[in-house]
């Protein structure tokens, strides 16, 4: 185990060849998107071995949830993958509703899907900005945040908070939509369609960017299946795994959108998957924004929820992949055991396989396209 005091250790083999250098990347590092500690064994600048050390943000969430009621544990999942907080909440709410057989009104379903798609776009925008910043380009960061701020304003009007919104509850949503919601979302969609052309010119067609991303971090389809990869990481290798298409929930079976698959298997393919997913999300929003049905925004539920004895599993598609909530209940007001199947945990285990033999610059490019959020991995 490498403690915080061992920074560099050099091993020189007896035959006079170049030794191997062991260095730390993180836990405090601008490119690791959180507190990820990688211990890298290098031979010159070529990577021999990458070992992720996790646990620097392990907040013992699964243990804590065993003492929280079914309405309370949802706020904690907002803080796990904080960039897709609505979608995490949706996963928990679906599991509780499955256990208690609650029927959600259609207005609430459409509102939930709209919020989920807006969150997906916001998450991909931040990913774009942060990844470009890792590779050295500072401008896309500010452009991406400009769009993200528009979404945050919409969220703030309706949900009350910008980042960790506690809006989706078992039974529906907490409050009705703000009266200006439709108008602001339409304004955002108009602006986004103009600006996505800017991203293409600035980032996608940039020669340096293409050279750094093409052929880097290759993950074949069989490896993606074996490592349990999910989300855009797996779709960039041609594996079809979009939960919204395979096991549709809410109103995803009634809207038209494509599942974006690329066969490149490298970092550039994963990048294109995410950019195209943003466009597909805009398509879903355009279909739903004018057709929000009237009705209740929340089903009538008891104040204290009690799940019957048994096991329940629900999965949703967050911006990073498949998020699963597995609740084992003994019939009480608090769960007996909760397991959160986070997408980043499996995606990270494929990192070593992807970067073995490449250079450190390629490691940063690959980690950027994996889109890791470390609190999601450590829970």
């Amino acid at each position, binding site marked *: 185990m490498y403690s915080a005091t061992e920074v560099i250790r050099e091993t020189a083999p007896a035959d006079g060849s170049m030794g191997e250098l062991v260095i730390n990347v993180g836990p405090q590092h601008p490119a690791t998107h959180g507190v990820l500690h990688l211990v890298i064994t290098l031979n010159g600048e070529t990577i021999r071995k990458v070992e992720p050390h996790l646990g620097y943000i392990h907040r013992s969430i699964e*243990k804590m949830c065993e003492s929280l009621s079914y309405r309370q544990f949802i706020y904690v999942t907002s803080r796990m993958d904080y960039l897709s907080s609505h979608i995490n909440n949706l996963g928990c709410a679906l599991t509780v509703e499955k256990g208690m057989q609650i029927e959600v009104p259609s207005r609430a379903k459409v509102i939930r899907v709209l919020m989920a798609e807006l969150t997906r776009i916001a998450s991909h925008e931040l990913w774009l900005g942060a990844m470009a910043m890792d590779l050295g380009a500072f401008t896309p960061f500010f452009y991406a945040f400009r769009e993200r701020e528009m979404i945050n304003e919409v969220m703030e009007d309706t949900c009350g908070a910008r980042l960790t919104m506690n809006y989706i509850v078992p039974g529906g949503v907490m409050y009705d939509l703000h009266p200006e919601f439709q108008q602001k979302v339409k304004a955002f969609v108009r602006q986004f369609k103009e600006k996505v052309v800017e991203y293409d010119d600035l980032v996608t067609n940039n020669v340096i960017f293409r050279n750094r991303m093409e052929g880097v971090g290759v993950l074949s389809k069989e490896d993606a299946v074996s490592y349990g990869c999910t989300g855009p990481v797996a779709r960039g290798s041609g594996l079809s795994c979009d939960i919204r298409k395979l096991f549709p929930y809410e109103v995803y079976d009634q809207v038209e959108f494509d599942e974006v698959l690329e066969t490149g298997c490298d970092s550039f393919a994963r990048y294109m998957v995410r950019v195209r997913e943003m466009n597909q999300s805009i398509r879903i929003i355009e279909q739903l924004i004018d057709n929000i049905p009237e009705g209740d925004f929340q089903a009538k539920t008891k104040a204290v929820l009690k799940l019957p004895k048994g096991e329940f599993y629900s999965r949703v598609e967050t911006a990073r992949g498949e998020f699963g909530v597995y609740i084992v209940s003994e019939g009480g007001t608090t769960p007996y055991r909760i397991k959160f199947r986070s997408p980043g945990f499996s995606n990270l285990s494929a990192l070593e396989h992807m970067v073995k033999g490449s250079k450190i610059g390629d490691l940063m490019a690959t980690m950027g396209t994996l889109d890791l959020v470390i609190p999601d991995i450590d829970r």
Partner: protein
Amino acid sequence: MELTAQQQGQEEFPGEIHQLPGGGIVVSSFNDIINWARSNSLWPLTFATSCCGIEMMAVASSKYDFSRFGFEVARATPRQADVIIIAGTIVNKMGPVLKRLYDQMADPKYVIAMGACAISGGPFFYNTYSVVKGADHIIPVDVYIPGCPPRPEALLHALLTLQEKIKSGMTREQIRKESKEG
């Protein structure tokens, strides 16, 4: 305690400027001038462990720009940073790392605890075995910002409060130095 106008940092330049033919004369005390200069150019360290880090990045971007207050460049290395903004939960495994970063920062250094987790453990206070209930168990903190996560305007208010605190000579650093000398 009531602060005078000077301690509240409402004066533009601490001291008197006399414009005389052939040059000018500035009458002030060195401490005041140094505090004024330091407070207007604090460079933060990028230390974001969890969700509050995103609000810190939002403050750094163009809508709530913090470089207009002097926090121009966010350095990644603690050797070149003046203020560490602890944005996010600190857990038992991260504690020694935080202490090490704080020790590596050069004097004078200031600390802002952002968000409920850094103040007192926040939503992870009860029934967790691995969360440090407050960053001030590890390093001394100057400014606390409540919120989960705090709004970007709250972070800007905290940065301005830190600037006023430095100008009035009331941060822990300055009090410690005064009590050593005096």
